[in-house]
């Protein structure tokens, strides 16, 4: 009798431990788990594992070829207390991030907003024009031709012809210009995926919302933008922001290609460069993992801040 009772009573959460319950739920949803497995496997192997491994390596001394040696917090101590160049790199990275991140973010949005007003066919063409620099890979090399150090470089040649300078300037090897030029190039290439996401976002907005808002007393385009457009496309804004941050912190390849590695007097040396310097050139992977971990923390941190800031949009 009691047995029957047990069968009829539905299984309740409180009957079992947490693990048993989880296991049971998993068995019940096994199709879903099987479906998600390929991605999760790849995700763990290629994304989560390297991050974890890198954190482990940051506590070791590792030259790639020989077995790592545990050194505790020595790398961190050295990084923060005995590495002037790292501090310089942090400064440069923050400058890059502060200039290229928000500026390019705003620029992307504004341009997307303006373009959205254009007739569809014109819009397609203009979108392509703005997006082109970031799809064509090494196109920023144009800048190295423009600002070539040779006296036949375009800018040098023109300036010399106009009599403004009389000897060629080594644009990308002169501390006075490198940072500015790199920022300009960064902005130019940054109208990338975020910009496309914004355009897509702007088009998903339900037109009836504007009409309803007009009835509710919205008076101008700015109010429209703040109260309707932006809140409606918050997911795209978030996406764009995350991209802008990772991009501005991870900004290194362009500088290397233009100003060399390392740039003169480390004037455009970012954390990415510092990481590369130790990992690639000096075979000190332990130390470069430490740098990577710090960079990782900075990125995650600024992501949280941005998320907070975006939640204020439209309020």
């Amino acid at each position, binding site marked *: 009798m009691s047995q029957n009772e047990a069968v009829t009573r539905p299984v309740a959460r409180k009957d079992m431990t947490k693990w048993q319950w989880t296991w049971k739920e998993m068995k019940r949803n096994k199709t879903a788990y099987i479906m998600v497995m390929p991605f999760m496997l790849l995700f763990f192997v290629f994304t989560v594992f390297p991050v974890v491994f890198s954190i482990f390596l940051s506590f070791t*001394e590792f030259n790639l070829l020989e077995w790592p040696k545990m050194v505790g917090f020595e790398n961190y101590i050295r990084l923060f207390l005995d590495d002037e160049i790292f501090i310089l790199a942090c400064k440069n990275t923050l400058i890059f991030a502060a200039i290229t991140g928000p500026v390019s973010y705003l620029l992307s949005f504004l341009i997307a907003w303006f373009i959205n007003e254009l007739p569809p066919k014109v819009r397609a063409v203009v979108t392509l024009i703005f997006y082109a620099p970031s799809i064509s890979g090494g196109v920023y090399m144009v800048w190295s031709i423009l600002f*070539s150090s040779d*006296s036949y470089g375009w800018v040098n040649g023109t300036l010399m*012809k106009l009599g403004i300078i009389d000897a060629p300037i080594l644009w990308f*090897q002169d*501390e006075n210009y490198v940072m500015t030029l790199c920022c300009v190039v960064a902005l130019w290439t940054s109208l990338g995926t975020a910009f496309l996401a914004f355009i897509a976002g702007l088009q998903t907005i339900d037109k009836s919302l504007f009409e309803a808002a007009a009835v509710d007393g919205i008076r101008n385009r700015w109010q429209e933008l703040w109260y309707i457009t932006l809140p409606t496309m918050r997911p795209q804004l978030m996406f764009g922001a995350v991209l802008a941050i990772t991009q501005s912190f991870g900004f290194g390849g362009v500088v290397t290609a233009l100003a060399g590695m390392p740039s*003169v007097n480390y004037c455009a040396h970012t954390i990415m460069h510092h990481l590369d310097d130790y990992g690639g050139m000096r075979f000190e992977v332990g130390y470069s993992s430490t740098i990577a971990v710090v960079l990782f923390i900075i990125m995650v941190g600024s992501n949280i801040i941005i998320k907070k800031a975006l939640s204020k949009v439209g309020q």
Partner: protein
Amino acid sequence: MKRTRFIRTTAFFLAVVMLCGLFGVSGSAAEAIGNVVSSTKEELLALLNASSYSEYDKKNPDTKGVETVVIDAKDVYSYSDGTTTYYYDAESSSFYSLNEAGEKVTANADELAVAFGEYGGVNALLSPTSGTLTWQVEIPASGRYGVEIVYYPLGESSTSVERMFYLDGKVPFAQARYLTLSKNWRYEYPTAEEGTLGLNGAYLDENGHVIFRTDVNGNQLKPTAVIDPKWMTYQFSDPDGFYQGAFEFYFDNENNKTGGLHTIALSSTREAMAIQTIRVFPVEEMPRYADVLASYKANGYQPAGKDASIRIEAEAPYRVSDTSVYSANDRTSAVTSPNSPGAQLQNVLGSNSYDTIGQWASYRFTVTETGLYTISVRCKQDKLAGMYTSRALRLAGGIYGEELSVPFAEAYDARFNYDKAWQIVTLGDGTSVFQFYFEEGETYTLSLDVSLGTLSDIIEGVERSLSVINDCYLDILRLTGAEPDEYRDYRFGRVMPATVRNLLKEHKNLSAVSEQLTALCGSKGAHVATLDKVAFLLDVMGSDEDKIAENLDDLKSYIGTLGTWLNTSKQQSLMMDYIVVSGSENATYDVSFTPVLDGQYKVDANFFEAAGFEISSFFNSFFVDYNQMGVTVTEEDMADRTRVEVWLATGRDQASIWRSLVDSTFTSTDEGAGIAVDLKLVAGGTLLPSVLAKQGPDVFVGLDSGSVINYAIRSAVLPLDDHPGTEEHKADLQETLRDFNEATLVPLSMYNKIYGVPETVSFSMMFYRKDALANLGLDVPQTWDDLLTCVPVLQSANMEIGLSRDFNMFHYQRGGDRWTYHGRDYNGTAYADLMEDDAFSTYFDYMQIAYDEDVALDAFRYMTRFYTDYSFPVAYDAANRFRTGEMPIVIADAVGMYNQLTVFATEIRGLWMFTNIPGTLRSDGTISSVAIAGVSAVVMMNGVDDEAASWRFMKWQVSPDVQATYGNGMVALIGPSAKYATANMKALFKMSWTTEEYENLYGQFNNLATIPNYPGAYIIDRYLNFAFLNSYNDGAEPVEQLQGYVKTINKEITRKRQEFELPVLEDGATIDDAIEQYLDYLATLDEAALAEFGFSDATLSYIKNRT
């Protein structure tokens, strides 16, 4: 009135003063340069300005020579080796020189380069690779004579023999400077059991196709070329192909001091040869084809029957002029014979490189019926768009005589018109096809020589225009500089009227050439458009001098375009499938006769054949292992051999040469017995990941010295002293390393162990434009101070010097060293005895850098001044500016720049040379012109399976013969721009450099320094660069800058050395402190670990007693 006079007087006075000043200045400038001027400059100018043959030809009276004079080469008058002249005494058959007192001194025959000997069964005179041989010849009457020599080429390199010809002590015209005598090569075909032996020395299968050697998958391999020296006849003629037929030299008895007795001399430029006779003969007029036809008719020759046609496969020539005429595989047509959709068969000749004037390929054949024949070629000419390429036809055998000769004038210009598709061309000159008389039973030889045909006039015209335009450009450049101000009136018309006139003249010349070309080709193609464009610009610039400045930039780029135009037009490329010698029933004695070719000779496949072939090829491509291409040893054969895995980080062409070299001279010989080489072409940068994954190779070829040490210190590369480490091997290693400059071993060694064998070496040399320097009256600078005296002269002509920034060069030339405590005397220290042990003291080398020493600071300041005070450009395109003449002196990587200029700046061929870099004057008056070398090496990786086998491969790979064969193979395959920078001194000698090039190169090769790469070395160049840029950009004091970084650099080196547990010298510590510290560290090690250091017993016991 008074006032005016006063002004006039003052003005006159001022003018006089200024004029004097001007002369004064220029006088002193000339003086300053005067002391470096040598007599060779006049010679050089004379040579550069030597007239071309056409001017020489026009100048001479039209008197034909009377009779042939034959000189036995053994009756040589004198031999000069550049310093001493040796006269030949026929009685004692020995050479003697004259000493200062005028007495005869008999020369020791063993020490002379010149000699008599038996060559190819004939007693003859040896003409060595350098020096000048002179003969005297009695000419009965003044007149035009041709010169012919019978020679026997010596030496096995793929370059032709080159000689300079002097008549009565002078080079009569420009082309006589580089007379080119071809060698004679044959291909070695395998002996087949079945099949018949063909006339070309190859076995043929039942279809008449040559049996080639095949790889494991049935792909046919290119046969090996073997030099086949024989006595050959050469009529002095144009090496550029502009003039057809023999050169006519004018022997002038009237204006000659010795009357009818003339001297003729041959000066060696490249390669040695033996000379049998020299013949001076009156040049006979070539018969015309119409006359030949008439003679056929008169002799009653009948056309051969239609069935008498024979086919000769072009891919297997009888002999060739050089190794770059070789067979290849063509898959563009299904009917190319033979062809297979699955395997790569050798089926055509000359797809890439049968295009340079002077190359030839000859074929042998017999005919089955006596009569008149035509010769047709199935070929493809798809390179020279809108134009045609030419071949000169030479024949030998039967009525054509024993020596190959051109039968009639028109045969110099057999044309092959442009067509993207295959075509069958019957040899003719565009208006008529040629018929030849062949007799049954005779063996004939037919040779197709690359020639310029009627295009020669056009190309020569453009070439002459180009050199004039180039001079005009340089003239203008000297006045305006590279960036002229277009708003300024330079008054070109007054300053350089001749230049402006020349621009207009060349406009007319080029327009005329363009019209001529249009008429020849029948249409205006892209080729003609280029000429028109340049002509138009010249017209604009020449007729309105205000336009000169603004168009100067365009003119510069057009000069380059014109150079490229010439380059492509001279390349007479042709791909041949087979040659048909066919009789024809409808033949007439008329020049307008057109033959009808047998139906079996198809121009191209029809649609179904082509489709079948393509589809079959497509499916076959799934079954072909491209990695196995060219491998001749089957897997089964390999099974019981030791495998050595070798990685190459080079190009595909390079790898294929290595593969065939490994097959032909390593695995199949004793050297590689029992070894199977697994050769893999990898991308650069693959080594690190593969070593990490323990999937690395046994041997890696081409690792730069920096990486060698980087890997070695982390024990990824093995020291060759201990691996394999047998006694026999150690002797072997010493023997192998003897072929290399010791300096190149330094960056591969660390702590008394060597980690690689040098493969290539790169270093800077000075390239200079002979013409520009001669025009400005400058001599080639020997020292940096000489170079600086050239600067004002060059700069006043708006020219610059290209100096690649290399601080080490200046530093080492002053006797400096990058490191302190390197090779230092330790007598002052408390541990002097201990430091006697090299194995111990070597760990105290390279602890700090020596950039705070005076010599380094001085060198750094000196180097920086070039850029700051003398405004040398920091960034520039060396090859381009050197080509245009803006930068007549460039210091750049020797082989790289040489290769670039050879292929890219053909219009300045012969106008430039390279020599050792300028040096620094030492205190004892000698000059140190050390250059800094970069080395790449062959290394043995940790994890190697069989050390002994790998070492045998490495030893073979860097041996002089193999390196030379590889280098020459590259040149043969890719062309003269593929010179290989071998590190092996003996191999360098065997490569195809001219004697002058070789001597210059070898001079610098023996004068190298290298910088050892020790832990932390990467930081040094970085801060050197910063120090320089700070001084250059912001005008900071260079010495302070460099000094300021010394501490930072030392800190990093110390840190890096600590990582590897090497002794360090901390800030403020003495060497004794460092030694003590290191001893403390050593004391912590156990015995086994200590044993690995290789210390002496005394040192070991000291360490033990210390604890």
